């Protein structure tokens, strides 16, 4: 029942978003009697999307043959690239996308998804009041600005590191060469130490005669 649970959740979220976006609501009637089938490789099951009386319907038919105006087989990663019409041919050629039927239907559904524009402050105001909304939004903007500053700072530091500091950093082969040099010096000093010991011993023997 995983497909049904998935469809149920996605359908609820989609319809909630549509109800909050007047522009999307206006576009829904143009999809009347249209059915888009989507098979996403990651999911392993097909989804059929249609609309009825201002509501999106998402089902997952268990039949092998699915009747739809347009059927798309793709992956979640390629789905993001579908927005760019110029990418379509490249995706089809590389077997990342397979389309059967009326492509216009798929584009209409994509355009519907793009049109979702929710006035969050107005929606929030209805639930928690205008003062709380104002404070929350001001706080959100400050947090967003702070996050943007941190992001810019990290990006700038990273660039500086890559451009300048990384060139100064000792590389792995250099460290390896240095370690080998130390080993060589150690070896030589051990040899000298042994030689000194031998000479000292010989000197002592000569003195004792």
């Amino acid at each position: 029942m995983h497909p049904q649970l998935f469809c149920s959740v996605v359908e609820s979220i989609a319809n909630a978003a549509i109800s909050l976006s007047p522009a999307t609501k206006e576009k829904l009637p143009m999809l009347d009697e249209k059915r888009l089938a989507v098979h996403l490789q990651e999911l392993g099951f097909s989804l059929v999307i249609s609309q009825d009386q201002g509501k999106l319907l998402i089902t997952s038919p268990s039949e092998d043959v699915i009747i739809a105006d347009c059927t798309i087989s793709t992956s979640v990663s390629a789905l993001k690239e579908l927005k760019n019409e110029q990418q379509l041919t490249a995706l089809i050629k590389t077997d990342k996308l397979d389309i059967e039927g009326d492509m216009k239907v798929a584009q209409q559904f994509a355009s519907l998804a793009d049109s979702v524009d929710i006035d969050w402050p107005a929606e929030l105001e209805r639930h928690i009041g205008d003062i709380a909304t104002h404070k929350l939004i001001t706080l959100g903007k400050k947090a967003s600005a702070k996050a943007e500053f941190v992001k810019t700072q990290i990006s700038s530091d990273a660039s500086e590191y890559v451009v300048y500091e990384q060139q100064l950093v000792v590389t792995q082969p250099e460290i390896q060469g240095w370690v080998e040099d130390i080993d060589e010096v150690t070896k030589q000093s051990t040899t000298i130490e042994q030689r000194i010991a031998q000479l000292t011993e010989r000197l002592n023997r000569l003195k004792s005669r």
Partner: protein
Amino acid sequence: MSEQQQNNSETNEQQTHFGYQTVDKNDKESMVAGVFHSVAQQYDIMNDLMSFGVHRLWKRFTIDASGVRPGNKVLDLAGGTGDLTAKFSQLVGKEGQVILADINSSMLNVGRDKLRDRGLVQNIEYVQANAEYLPFDDNTFNIVTIAFGLRNVTNKDNALKSIFRVLKPGGRLLVLEFSKPEQELLNKAYDFYSFNILPKMGEFVAKDGDSYQYLAESIRMHPDQETLKSMMENAGFEQTTYNNLTGGIVALHKGYKF
């Protein structure tokens, strides 16, 4: 022979089960009617409470397995408060038609009011009908569903034959019904829940513990997965299969008329 088949054969031809009671066949219809007149107003909320909302997924599974297409004619038998009808109505479109049929007028009224409140009016008809004697012409429907209704029917074989008659060739029947859990541990937990918690829940919410005691008993007396599959085959259905849902607490049987 299964325990249930033995129970069935032990029952006199003029008698049938009403939960664990053996009653006269003529009385069962009115006794079941009494149960549903009593619970109709609280039916939806009790379904959500009893199944923790999972009944919505069972019904979605049924819709997805039905292969419904725009323009289809669907009979939602024992449709109660119209959950399946609502979804079918949206999927068959303007060219299609859904008939919500129930033997119980209270359930039918609740269903009709609910669907009308949701603006679902254009392709739905309401018929008060007994599943054993369906008032429709032969070869009328593409799909017939009966969700959580077959176990309340007095003579299930007659109902299956009647459904077979009204289905078009190529049409299919989907029976969504409580069944027998596959795992013994789940079976025991389910028994405890059904006989100890369910009637109390019914008493508290619907002010009718007896009806929910009947619900638990009628589920135990209903044919198990294989027995119901055989009954469907005896009625003439072909390519009969079933899917266990939630460990077999519920099963969806599907059969075709060719």
